[in-house]
C-alpha cells in the first residue's frame, strides 16, 4: 500500500494561509474573549462612569470632567499616592534584589531535601490567601501582646508599634507583602538561572573567572530578561496591593499605610461616589501604563537577549 506523502507547508515571511490564521484565532479566542470581557469592557465601563456623578442608587448625572478636576484638589489622594509609592517601591526592591539573592543561594550546592524544603517554604506564603496571611501577621505584630515584640523584649529591645504608628505601619505592610510575594520572584529567578547554559559558566571557570565575575559577566546578563519581567510584574502588583493594608492597619494610622486601590474602594463603596472613584481608577491605570512604558524604554540599555 502506498501512501501519498504530503510535505509540510513551508511558510516564509509571506502571509500565512487563511486556514492557519483561522486556527490561530480559534486557539486565541479564549484569551481574546477573556481580555474583552474581563479587561477591556470593565475599563470602558470605568471610563464611562468617570464622567458621571452617580451613587449606585440614583440616576447618574453627566458632569463632564468634574471628577478629574477634583483629583487635582484632593490633598488626601496626593498623600495616598505618596504612601503607595513608598510601599510599592520598597516591595519591588525586596522582590527583585532579595529575591535574586535567595534564588542564587537556593541554586548553590545543598542536599536535595534541603533545597526542596527551602523552595516550599518560600513559595508557600504565595499560594495562601492574602487576607489569611495578613490576619495572622496582625496577631503577631500587635504592639503589646504580639509574638514579634515579645521576642524583641527577650533580647532586650523595646516594643515597636508595628501597626499603630505612622512610621512603622507602612514598614509592616512592606514586610508582610514581601514575605508573601517573594516566593513567586524566587520561582521565576530559579527558572531563569536554570535556563543559563552550564557551558558558559564552565568556560568562564576554565578562563579563571571568579564567582563575582561569573555573576556579573554571565549570570546577570543572561538573567536580565527575567529581571526585567519581574520588575514590570512586581511594579504593577505592588502598586495594586489592597488586602495587607486593609487587614493589618486599615490603611492607618490616618493614611500612613493607605494605598490607592484602598482609597479608590472607599470612595466607591464607602462614599458611593462611583464617578470620582472611576476617575481615580482611570488616572491610576494611566500612571501604571506610563511607569511600564518607561521601564520598557529603559530596559533597552541593560536587558540582554540571546
Amino acid at each position, binding site marked *: 500500500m502506498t501512501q501519498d506523502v504530503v510535505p509540510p507547508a513551508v511558510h516564509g515571511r509571506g502571509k500565512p494561509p487563511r486556514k492557519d490564521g483561522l486556527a490561530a484565532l480559534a486557539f486565541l479566542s479564549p484569551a481574546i474573549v477573556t481580555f474583552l470581557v474581563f479587561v477591556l469592557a470593565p475599563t470602558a*465601563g470605568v471610563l464611562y462612569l468617570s464622567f458621571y456623578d452617580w451613587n449606585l*442608587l440614583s440616576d447618574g448625572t453627566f458632569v463632564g470632567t468634574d471628577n478629574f478636576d477634583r483629583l487635582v484638589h484632593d490633598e488626601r489622594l496626593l498623600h495616598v499616592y505618596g504612601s503607595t509609592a513608598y510601599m510599592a517601591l520598597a516591595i519591588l526592591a525586596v522582590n527583585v534584589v532579595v529575591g535574586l539573592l535567595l534564588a542564587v543561594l537556593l541554586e548553590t550546592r545543598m542536599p536535595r531535601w534541603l533545597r526542596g524544603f527551602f523552595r516550599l517554604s518560600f513559595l508557600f506564603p504565595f499560594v495562601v490567601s492574602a487576607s489569611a496571611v495578613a490576619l495572622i501577621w496582625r496577631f503577631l505584630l500587635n504592639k*503589646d501582646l504580639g509574638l514579634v515584640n515579645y521576642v524583641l523584649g527577650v533580647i532586650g529591645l523595646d516594643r515597636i508599634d508595628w501597626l*499603630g504608628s505612622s512610621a512603622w505601619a507602612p514598614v509592616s505592610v512592606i514586610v508582610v507583602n514581601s514575605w508573601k510575594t517573594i516566593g513567586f520572584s524566587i520561582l521565576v529567578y530559579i527558572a531563569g538561572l536554570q535556563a543559563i547554559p552550564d557551558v558558559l559558566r564552565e568556560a568562564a571557570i576554565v578562563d579563571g573567572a571568579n564567582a563575582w565575575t561569573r555573576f556579573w559577566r554571565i549570570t546577570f546578563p543572561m538573567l536580565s530578561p527575567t529581571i526585567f519581567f519581574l520588575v514590570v510584574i512586581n511594579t504593577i502588583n505592588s502598586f495594586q496591593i489592597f488586602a495587607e493594608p486593609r487587614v493589618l492597619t*486599615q490603611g*492607618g*494610622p490616618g493614611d500612613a499605610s493607605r494605598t490607592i486601590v484602598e482609597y479608590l474602594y472607599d470612595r466607591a463603596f464607602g*462614599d*458611593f461616589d462611583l464617578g470620582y472613584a472611576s476617575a481615580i481608577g482611570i488616572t491610576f491605570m494611566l500612571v501604571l501604563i506610563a511607569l511600564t512604558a518607561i521601564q520598557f524604554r529603559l530596559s533597552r540599555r541593560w536587558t540582554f537577549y540571546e
Partner: protein
Amino acid sequence: MKTPLRKIALLCAAALAVIPSAACSNDDSDSSAGDKALDIVYWNYGPAAESGNKATADAFMAANPGTKVTLTPVTGENWGTYYANVATLIASGKRPDVMVISGEGAQFVHANNLVKPINDYLDKDADAKTLTGDIAPGLIDGFTVKGDVITLTYGWNDMVVYYNTAVFKKAGLEPPKADWTWADFEATAKKLTKDTNGDGKTDQYGFTWASNEIFPGIMPWVANAGGNLTSDDVCSATADTPQVNKAVAYLENLIKTGVSPAPMPMSDVFTRFQNGQIAMFGAGRWPIATFLPKFKDFDIQLYPKGDTYKTVFGGAGYPILKSSKNPDLAWEYQKFTVSTDIEKQYVGTADKPGDSIPSRRSLAQTISKVGVPPANSDLYYDSIDKYPTLVPYPAPAKYSAFESTVLRHLQLIFAGEKSVSDGLKDMQAELSSIVTC
C-alpha cells in the same frame, strides 16, 4: 443618563469580584416572579447568618404553603460594606423584596428611598399591636426616620462590658456592680493589669476596645459623658464637643497609663479575652456565639457611669423594599421574623446561643431561664427597659464614610500622633460635609 447604559457600565466596572456570592446566588427569573415569591437579601457575615436565615425562610415556607423564599447572601466586612454591596446588586438590576438592615442602615435606606414604611401595616394589622406591645419602645423609635417606621426589629444589641470571671477571681476582685463609675472602672482595670510572667512587661491588660468599630468602641463612653457624635436628628456632626473630648481623653489615658493595650480589631479582642490577656472589653450580645460552648468564664455588666448613664443600642430588621412586587407577603415575612418560634432562635441554647438579643421582651427574659450564659443575661433587656435614657447608635445616611472617617482620626489620636482636641477638631471638620440631611 439612560439606565441600560449605566447598568452595562456598572456591570463591567463593579466587575465580578465585589459581591461574588450575591451575584451568583440566583437570578431575577425566580425572584418576585409569582404572587407568593419573596427574594430576601441578607448579610452573610458567617455560618450563623446563613443557617439562621435558612431556618427562618424554611419555617416561613412551611407555615405558608405555596410560598417560595429565595435567599440571596451578600458579603461584606461590616454593615457598611454590606450596604454598598446591596446597592451594587440593586444597581445591576436585582429587585429584592426584603433586605436585612441594622440601625446603621435606617437613614441610608430612607434617604435613598429604598424602603416602604410599615406605618399603615402597624395601624391596620391586629397582630402588629400584640407584637409591638412586647417590643421595647426604644427599638421601634430606633427604626423610625422622620415619622416613617422602617421595620420591626427582630434582634438588637446594647453595649455592655464583658469581663473574664477567672481573671477577676485570680486577682481577688469582686464582680463589678451596675452602678460603678469611670473612676471605679479605671481602678478595677489597673488591678487587672499585670506582668504575669515576671519579664518586666505587661502581658495582661485591664480593658480594651475595638479599633475597627465605633459602636462597641468609643460610643458607650461618649454617651456616658453626655455626648454623641451627631445631633439627635443625625443631620450634623458633633464630634468635637467637650463631652466627646472627655470620653476620648479618658480612653487615651487608659493607653498612656498602660491599662489598655493599643486598640485592636474586635476579632483579635475576642481571642485575647478568652486567653486571659484582656480582662474586660465592650460589645453587644454577639461575642457569646464565638465564646460558647467552649469558653464560659465570662459575665457582663453595664458600662460604668460617667456624667450620666445612657444605653447605647442598635437593632436589625427585615424592611420591605419599594421594589417588592409582593409587599403584603413581605410584611408577613417581617412579622414572622419576630414570631415566637423565630425569636427563640435568638435566645438559643447554652451550646448554640443566638448572636443578638431577641426584640420581644417575653422571649429575651427567657435567656437566663434556659441557661444560656452569661449569668447576668437579664441585663441585656433591662438596659433598654429600665434605663430610660437611650442613645440609638448614630448612623447618618452616609454611614460607611462616617464610620471610616471617625476611625481614621481615632487611629491617630490613640497612636499618640495627634492630641485629642486636635484630632477631634480635624474629625469634626471632615464629618461636617458627611453628616448632613
